[in-house]
């Protein structure tokens, strides 16, 4: 240790541990761990929370050994494009190796959060039996398990506080898994079962909710009818986050008034979602709590105007709004004038495949919200037309954007007024929004837009590109710029070998790169893999042309997934995946 820092060595480890406990972000703890060997040792030995953005970047046993005191772990598996069926279902992301290592080395684990992982019932069983103080299980966009596994969790995790299954695919093998929560279970604070397809016994759920007096989040699935929702709300008036079940019923004034008063009784309600199969007659039942809402998720609710706007305009304190494009431009204009505190807006397509009855949602709606909502920083917007002028306006209005994801549904759509590419528009976004962390581009785009992105998007961490660019230069601009790029995902772009090989070292500074339907050849992958031993270069070829080992260098690569790792090539690749 350098002379003038000898005073630091006088402190016992516990003091540094205590100091580090005030570092809440992973980035800060990582930075502390790089100062010197002592701090590295002390920090990692006392770290309580670990985040693994790519489950294959480190071997589970190594992670468990390095951080022996972990109480909470977040592990992510499949690449993001798995959400859109671009990744073969058997690609990987299995949780077994992690759960086994954790069961062995982290007996005091309390929180486990998986995203895009394949979690089997055996895994759930092992989790249920291995961690005596297990409190939180979150399985987001996961699959591979069934309600039998959930029954094991319910039955054995005595102190379970949170069970979250957001957007997971769950097989229904055990019909009444909810009944496996013992009578002694009173600890539940959050329960999100909205993704379950099957029936959930409402009576058993009611009894469970009754005895869990701290329940704050309850997100039901579509099988829970409106009549039963009333009972649940009456038993949990302290709810802050509610996902309704089916939101329609036969016209029944008594039911309406019971629902209305049950909802009004939930004075702490801040988040509202669900609204499966919404019936217009029952919507006004939620009006009383609209003003208190900070988050409203109607992205599965096929409500149209004017009822949709009537509902949203009452939510004057909304920070977060997820809605279908049924809101139309007129609705967004209303949002712009009613929801002045709006920070995040997501607009999803009601009819993504064929505009049989095109909805009147255009670039105008986006512009209106960008003008009217000064705190808006996160946007996801699906639409069918866009202009450079609109994007320039948005960029000027909202330089505070941190996330801008625009999806123009028809690939390669130009500015519909000028017929030009949307380069100028997106360039304006990245030049104006200096804190942009996430960007998705669409429409007709040339290499020029990538030049701007590479040069200006200094804090960009995630970039998604589809059906864009002219050639290799596009990718080169990105990889040679974008200083903080972590995740890059590309599909159907004419990007080839050269930019990859020229920027090989950049790839080690990123978490991962996905390229599908581009112009990359096997030869380049082989070169890259040879030059960069700490990258896994995975080639995915599903058309079964025979073992890749035998293929020539000029063989085109369908899908490519490159990620940095200290674990070396993984051992669980399926037939269609080769680690070069």
């Amino acid at each position, binding site marked *: 240790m350098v002379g003038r820092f000898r005073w630091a060595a006088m402190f016992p480890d516990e003091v540094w541990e205590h100091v580090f406990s005030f570092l809440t972000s992973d980035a800060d703890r990582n930075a502390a761990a790089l100062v010197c060997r002592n701090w590295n040792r002390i920090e990692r030995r006392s770290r309580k929370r670990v985040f693994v953005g790519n489950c294959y970047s480190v071997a589970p046993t190594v992670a468990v050994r390095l951080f022996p005191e972990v109480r909470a772990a977040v592990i992510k598996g499949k690449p993001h494009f798995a959400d*859109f069926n671009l990744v073969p279902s058997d690609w990987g992301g299995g949780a077994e190796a992690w759960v086994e290592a954790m069961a062995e080395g982290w007996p005091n684990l309390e929180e486990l959060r998986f995203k895009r992982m394949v979690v089997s019932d055996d895994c759930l069983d092992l989790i249920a039996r291995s961690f005596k103080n297990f409190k939180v299980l979150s399985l987001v*966009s996961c699959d591979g398990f069934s309600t039998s596994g959930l029954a094991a969790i319910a039955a054995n995790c005595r102190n379970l506080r949170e069970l979250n299954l957001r*957007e997971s695919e769950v097989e229904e093998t055990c019909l009444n898994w909810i009944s496996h929560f013992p009578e002694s279970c009173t600890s539940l604070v959050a329960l999100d079962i909205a993704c379950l397809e099957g029936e959930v016994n409402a009576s058993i759920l009611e009894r469970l909710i009754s005895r869990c007096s701290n329940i704050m989040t309850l997100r039901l699935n579509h099988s829970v*009818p409106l009549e039963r929702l009333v009972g649940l709300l009456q038993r949990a008036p302290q709810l802050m986050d509610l996902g309704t079940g089916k939101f*329609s019923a036969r016209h029944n004034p008594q*039911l309406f008034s019971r629902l209305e008063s049950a909802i009004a009784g939930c004075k702490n309600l801040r988040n509202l979602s669900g609204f499966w199969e919404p019936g217009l007659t029952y919507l006004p039942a939620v009006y009383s709590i609209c003003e208190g809402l900070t988050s409203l998720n109607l992205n599965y609710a096929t409500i149209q105007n004017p009822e949709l706007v009537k509902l949203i305009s009452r939510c004057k304190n909304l920070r977060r709004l997820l809605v279908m494009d*049924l809101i139309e431009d007129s609705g967004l204009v209303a949002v712009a004038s009613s929801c002045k505190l709006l920070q995040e807006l997501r607009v999803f397509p009601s009819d*993504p495949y*064929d505009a049989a009855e095109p909805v009147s949602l255009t670039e105008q709606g986006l512009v209106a919200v960008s003008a009217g909502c000064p705190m808006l920083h996160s946007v996801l917007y699906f639409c069918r037309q866009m202009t450079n002028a609109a994007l320039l306006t948005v960029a000027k209005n909202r330089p505070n954007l941190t996330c801008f994801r625009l999806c123009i549904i028809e690939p390669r759509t130009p500015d519909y007024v000028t017929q030009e590419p949307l380069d100028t528009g997106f360039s304006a976004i990245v030049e104006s929004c200096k804190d942009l962390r996430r960007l998705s581009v669409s429409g007709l785009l040339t290499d020029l837009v990538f030049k701007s992105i590479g040069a200006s998007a200094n804090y960009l961490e995630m970039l998604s590109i589809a059906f864009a660019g002219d050639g290799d230069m596009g990718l080169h601009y990105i990889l040679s710029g974008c200083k903080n790029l972590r995740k890059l995902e590309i599909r159907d772009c004419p990007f080839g070998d050269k930019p990859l090989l020229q920027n090989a070292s950049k790839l080690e500074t990123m978490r991962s790169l996905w390229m599908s339907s581009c112009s990359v050849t096997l030869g380049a992958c082989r070169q890259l893999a040879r030059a960069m031993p700490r990258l896994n270069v995975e080639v995915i070829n599903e058309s079964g042309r025979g073992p890749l080992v035998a293929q020539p260098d000029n063989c085109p690569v369908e899908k490519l997934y490159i990620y940095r790792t200290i674990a070396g090539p993984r051992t669980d690749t399926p037939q269609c995946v080769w680690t070069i």
Partner: protein
Amino acid sequence: MASYVEDTELRLGLPGSDAPASRGSKRSLPENSSAGDESCCRNDGSASAAKAQVVGWPPIGTYRKNNFQAMKVETMVVEPEASGLYVKVSMDGAPYLRKIDLKVYKGYQELKEALDSMFKCFSQGELSRKEGCNGSEYAIAYQDKDGDLMLVGDVPWEMFTSSCKRLRIMKGSEARGLEFRQ
């Protein structure tokens, strides 16, 4: 495309009477707009699809895609109540079941009369009245949303139609057991 299928379909109605499509099929009922039919067919992946769909585009999550079918049907139907409310009706001892549309009846009296005439050939006398089973052989029960078997007649008509999944005409002896269980 479906016409010859309908001709060969087994039905319980008199020849020439309309036998509606059973609940739960993807094809929408006749009274719904034709646009609903069109889009249902299209989503079923029939050859008439105008455009070949690009895999994974637009980038909407698999969950949204899987639920798209259900969501689409909802937007076509102005009010969910517009479609029929068909439930199966079984009678203990009868060789086959019937299907009725609960929406057609305005109350319990009408329902019981309809069931009387439907199952007349199987029972010696009239089906039970609302007040009780004294002297008659059958009681009408229904299965509600929670799967419980309930005696017909206790709750308001609207509540009954919204929660009834299936009707069962039970033999007197078993039915008396049901009453006591209430």
